[in-house]
Structures are given as C-alpha cells and as structure tokens.
C-alpha cells in the first residue's frame, strides 16, 4: 500500500492503494468515477480509455505508480456540461447502441482531434482501431468524428 496524490478532472484526490493497481480500478473502485469501463483488462478493447496529459491511454494497464504529476481526464471531466464537440457529435449521430464502449470511443476520438484537427477517413479508421464496439456502431463513430472535426 502507498499513498498517491492525483489530479483528476481538475480536482485533487488522494488514495491509498497497492502501487500496481491500474488507474482504471482506482477510478472505479476507490473514487467512484465509473465512466471509464472495464472490457478486457489487457489494452485490447479501449473501453477504459482516459487522457493522461491529453494523451489517450488504456487505464486498465496503467499502474497508479506511473501517473506521477500528470493530470488525468476521464469522460466525466471531458467537458463541464457534456458539450464537448465530440460529445455533441455523438448525440447528433445517435451513435450509441448498448453504450458500453462509447465513453472509451469518445475519449479516443477527442484525443485524435486534439492531435489532428482534420483527420481523413483513413486516419480515423486507423486511430480508432483500438476501440472495439461489440454492437458495431463504427459507421456512426466515423461520421460523428467528422462532424466534431468540422465543429471544433
């Protein structure tokens, strides 16, 4: 057990956990931030995607001990009122089916647009390949990212 000081969604948190604990479980079990989802635990599905200093990372394999002073953003903190251009585009295109993968998809998409404000279809397909949608909403995800790119 060790104590960690975290900056998550602009707020300071302190947790006392095993240093190997992945950030995903610190968020979900200890801080009651359950927006990041568990789908595989081995960085294969992207459901757990968060931003660490603006880079999209799979929180299921990121030990809490490696966060250091970096700031964490989860889906809950992506925007104040759920009005990030990606979130708005997701609603416009009615992307979700079961919805379970979508927090991770949105976090990946937001990071993609942060790095490349006007991605081509091909760039979207490549960038989003780490996020599985078992319900098969890929066509809508691509359209929503294009809308978000145009509006941000």
């Amino acid at each position, binding site marked *: 057990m060790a104590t960690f000081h975290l900056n998550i969604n602009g707020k300071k948190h302190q947790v006392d*956990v*095993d240093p*190997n*604990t*992945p950030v995903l*479980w610190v968020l*979900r*079990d*200890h801080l*009651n*931030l*359950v*927006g*990041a*989802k*568990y*789908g*595989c*635990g*081995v960085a*294969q*599905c992207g*459901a757990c995607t968060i931003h660490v200093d603006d880079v999209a990372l799979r929180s299921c394999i990121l030990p809490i001990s490696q966060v250091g002073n970096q700031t964490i953003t*989860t*889906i*809950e903190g*992506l925007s104040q009122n*759920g009005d990030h251009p990606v*979130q708005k585009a*997701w*609603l416009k295109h*009615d992307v*979700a*089916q*079961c*919805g*379970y*993968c*979508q*927090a991770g998809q*949105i976090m990946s998409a937001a990071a993609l647009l942060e790095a490349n404000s006007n991605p081509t*279809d091909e760039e*979207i*397909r*490549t960038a*989003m*390949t*780490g*996020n*599985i*949608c*078992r*319900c*098969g*909403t*890929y*066509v*809508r*995800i*691509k359209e929503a990212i294009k809308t978000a790119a145009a509006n941000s």
Partner: protein
Amino acid sequence: MTLIKTKYNRRSFLKVSAAAGGGMLIGFNWLTSCTSPVEEGIPMPNEWFEINGYIKIGNTGLVTIYSPNPEIGQNVMTSMPMIVAEELDVKWDHVVVEQGSLDEDAFKNRQFAGGSLSIMRGWDVLRMAGATGRRMLLEAAAKEWGVALSDLTVSEGIIKEVNGDRSIGYGAIASKAVGIEVPEEVELKDPKDFTLIGSFQKNVEGPKIVTGKPLFGLDFKREGMLLAMIEHPPAFGMTVKDFNRDEIVAVNGVRDAFTIDISMDDPGFGNENAFPQMIAIVGDSTWQLMQAKKALKANWEIESELENSEMHAQRLKRDIDQGEVQETRKDGNPEAAFTKAAKVIERTYTAPFQAHNTLEPMNFFAHVTTDKAELIGPTQTPNSLRESASKLLGIPEENISVDITRIGGGFGRRLYVHYGLEAAAISKKTGAPIKLIYTREDDMTHGIYRPAYRSTYKAGLDENNNLIAYSVKGVGFREGAIFPNRFPAGAVDHYAATKLKSETNISTGAWRAPRSHFEAGAQQAFLDEVAEAAGKDTIELQLELLDRAKNNPVGEKYEYEADRYAGVLKLVKEKANWGAEVPGVHRGFAAYFCHNSYVAQVLDLVMKDGLPVVKKVWCAVDCGIVVNREGAINIIQGGVVDGIGHAMYSELKFENGVSTHKNFNTYQLVRHNQSPEEIEVFFVENDISPTGLGEPGLPPAVGALANALYKATGQRYYHQPFAIANQDQNAFDISRTG
C-alpha cells in the same frame, strides 16, 4: 377504425390513479418485448395482472413514461415509449422516459411479467395504454365543458373544441381524468395518421451515455457492498475439488473464499450452465480480487470427456447422418429427382463455436438475507432469474426482487441466469451485499456459446437449368442448424430438409439470430453457386423461386410470405443498382427471413493490399411499421457489422476441454478498420405491425460477404471464419486448423 379492448373478461389491463404531486397515473402491464411470441387462445391466468409500466401525466403537461424494459442496445427504451406517446397524442419533447428507478416509490413492489404470460403483443398493449389515456383525458374535458366527445379534437396534448374557442392542455385536465371510468374499448389511430411513429428520434439515454453516467450493472454500487469474483473449472468436463483457501484468504483485501454450488434438481428456463460448482472469492477491491485469483491453486476433477475441436468436427461429420433428427420436411420425391437431374451440386458449410463477448462482462449485485433477496444487474430474463433464485435460496418468489440495469450488450447471452444465481449464492454465504464481477477471461471461457454447425446442401438442375430438386441437412450441437420450412421450401417440387443435433458437454445457447445467421450464410452462398451453374442472375433465380412459392406453392405451409420476401429483393436491387459493374468492385447479394422480418443486402468490396475492404452495404428491410427510424437504422447497421465480423474473423476452439481463446488478444472481433465504410438502410413502407429488428440485419450479411469474396478471389467460401479457415470442401473433415 381499429378498436381495442382494455379488458379481458372483467379484468382490466390498466389501472388509473391520481399521481403523487398532481396529475394522472396510468399503470399497465408493459411486456418485456415488442416481439414477444403471441400465444393466442391461452386463458389469462388470474395472477397475470402485474402492473409494471406507468404513464404519468403531470399537471404541468409533462408526460413521464416509466419503462421497465431491459435496454440492451436495441433502443426499446426509446422506441416503445414512442408508441405510447403516439397514441396518447403528445409532443415527444414533452415526454420524459425513465427506466423504473430503483428507489422510485412507484416501483417499490414492482414485479416483472414475462412475455409468455401475455395474450396481446407489446405493440397492441402500448398503443392501448396510450389510447386509453387520450380517451380518458378527452372524456374529462367533455364532462368539464358539458359537450359531447365528438365535439372535441386533440393534437399534441392540447384538447380543442371543434366548433368553439375553448382549449385545454392535458396537464390542466389530468387530475380530473382520474375520476373517469376506464373505457371498455378504445380507438387506435390509423397508421396513416402516425406522426411520431416512423420518425427519427434519438436514444433517450444518449446524454447520460456520452457523459459516462453510472448506468450499467458493473457501475452499480451500494453502501457496504463487497466485491466478488469466481474461478470456474478450467475445462468443460471438470469440477472443483478443493483449493488453497488459507493462502487465498491471506491475500490483501480478501475477506473470504469458498466454493459455491448453484445446481438444482429442477432447473428452469435460462439455467444452462456447465459449471454449477466453482470457487468464489470475496473482497474489497477488483484489483485485489484479481491478484487473489492469480494466487489460486485448485484441484479439479474430471467428470466427463475433455473435448477438442477436432473431435467436434468429427462428431458433426458423423451426426449430419446419424444425429438425432429434430425436424424434417419433404415435398415430392427428391431422391428420384436427383437421379434424373442433368446437374447436381453438393456443398458443405461449417461454422465454429463463438462467444457472445458482450462488451460489459457478466456481473450481478445480490443482497440475500434469511428471508429476502434483492438482485440487481444486467439480465434479459428477470422472471427466470427470480424463479431459479427462489429454488436455489429456498426463499419464496414474492420475497425476491430482480431489477434491471442498462445492459452492455446482450446478443442472447443475458437470457441465461447463472451469473445472477452465483451472485445470490455468494451473498448468502457471505451474509453481505456483494457485486459479482467476471473478468473478460471468466466471461469468454464460461460462455453459453453459439455452437459449431455443419450443413450439406444439394441442388438438382434439369437440362433447362430449372431447379427441380433441393435438399439440406443441418446439424449443430444441442440444436440443429436449419429451419426446414423456410425458403426455398414451397418453391421447389422435390425438397427435403433435415435438422439434426449432436452432443457436447460445452454449454451452448442462443446467439443473435440463432441458427439463422449460419443458415443464411450457407444457403445464400449455395444458391449463388447454383445460380452460377444455371447461368442465371442470383437475384433473378431467387425471385423466380419466390414467384413459384406464391403462385403455385409446393407442399405444406411454409414460414415466410413470398410477396414480402420478393419485396426486399426488388428494393435492394433497385437501390444498389444491381447489375451495374464497377471495375475493381466486387458485389455479393444475400437475403434472409427471420424473426418475422425480411432483409436483403448487396455488399461491395474491394481488395486492398490483398485484403478485402467492404466499401458499402445496401440493406432493404421489411419489418412492418418502423417505430423509430433512427434506432432501426442503427440496429440494422450493427447487425451487418456483427454478421461480417463474426463470419470473417471470430472463432473459439477447444483443446482438452479448454477454450483456447480467453481474451480479445486472441479472439478476434471486428474492429473499426475492418468494418464497412458505409451502410445504407431502406425500409419497405407498410401498415403491418412491427416485427423483429435486433436480429434480422445480421444473417444476410454473412451470405453477401461470402458471395462478394468469391467475386473478388474466385474462391468460394464454405468455412467460417473466412479470413482464417481453409476453404477446401474437405478441409473441415480433417482439421479445423487451416
């Protein structure tokens, strides 16, 4: 004008009362599915009357519809309230849809009724509830103003006098409508007058989903709740003997560890389960439990044969002739016709086991005390769970509540109740509220899998290339692979179909469009090959057959409506501009009927760096009246991606009873860059009551993909997954490793 009864004998389908805080509350029996099987003529049991759906018309005019339906991503939480709102005649943006919240007073003693108890379809019930509300509000206004009902009209929640100036909103009259007697019969709208039904409406939970609200079972939390994980035997055919309990309970954060047994003498529906005994570990946090699982050292006992994929292939090969026959159909004399035929084509198709892999793994909350149990989580069959939990715990059903969270994917997996029962057994033993969580590995290796299948199709053509004989034999584990009375039954003079089953100790069950997805792939690829041999266009051949089935049907009744079937073929042909050849673009066609809906698809693919890329899929759909066009298109698109993905990439193999795939690093699911670039959906417009949408989009995609791949590669695709399996006709007989 359609009239619909609100009573059966003297029992009303509805209850009306004053709403807390003002307004009117209509309670009714909201069925669990829009496409629940209709069991005509079954007398209604006395205890059937279980209120679980509510419409609240508040005195502000805001309408709240409480939906008890499990939302697994099929959009029922949006589309079903739309049906109510249409008949009630209110503006959609004055409607709020809520999943019966767990602390909501109205739901304190809520019990769920299953579709099997219903004598009416969900469609009718929802319309009736809305129409009753509208009628009672109108009657209240008529009484208030001293005019006849016929002097009033209503639109978007505003009642108006036909020849007068007075008008009143629903909100202002709602409290008075409570005193009106529930009419015995109400009038339903003519589908031509629908304004909300058929429109594009967004998922009502969209804003919560995109902001990461705790909606799912895995997100559920209760004060004082502990977490639990299970370790099931590593192989099918094994059971648990003992384990290093002392070491496990010494792991940080572990409170207890023990074995549980959820087997019962008289299992009910949905109780499929290969591992009734397993190890359970209870603790404080998920990560600590994962560590404890790694530290487990258990002794397992072999109870039955440890199977492997080669053995499965051999069994299916044997049982396609020797398996237990489940259903047959025979018209004419196929044997004689095949001997006479100028050309005979025979092909065998196979598909492997597959996991459901809902993205949210199995999980359930349970709080069991001596005489009560509370169960909360992602299930599609709360009634079955309650029934089984009652047997397992020895607690009467009325003391067990089952509540449903939003469900992170179903595909058939959440029809099975074992994970809810496991949670109950763990809570009982622990004496505390617990939430059971499966790891992905637990989920994938403890599946109720789509079984492996094998079918052999045979067609006989005469010298004029007419299809004179057709036969199919289809075998699967526990359930045969085909539907003998579906197309082309009724369309061929000499026809034989035999559905057979084989046995395995691996748990199998329903997987999105059970059997249909395999049959559609195999049959539609086969007919494509037959059309080629006959020198005919593949769509023309099927249209000819449908014509025959309609005008001069062969034999006993068949399952589909030939006209509606032909309708989707023609629609997709037109929309995709079938027949126009684009260089480098390879087109495949397939159609299928299941869950009372008809879907035809044209799929275009190109080869890029030696790999197929699906450019576009056109879908023509006849599912009767489309309730929510937005949701309907989304779910059909999802079905196409699912069909392509599983046919192309996914398989589960076994070695010594152990699934060789445990997580998404080895089990391949279709990803964004492998998904079609565009999917366009067209609906046949008609006035037929809505039929299935969640499943019918998937099956034709398998056939359309196989046929397009053939055009692209010159190779016919017989064995799934297409991207991996050896496609030689005989390959499957030897080994699945190709």
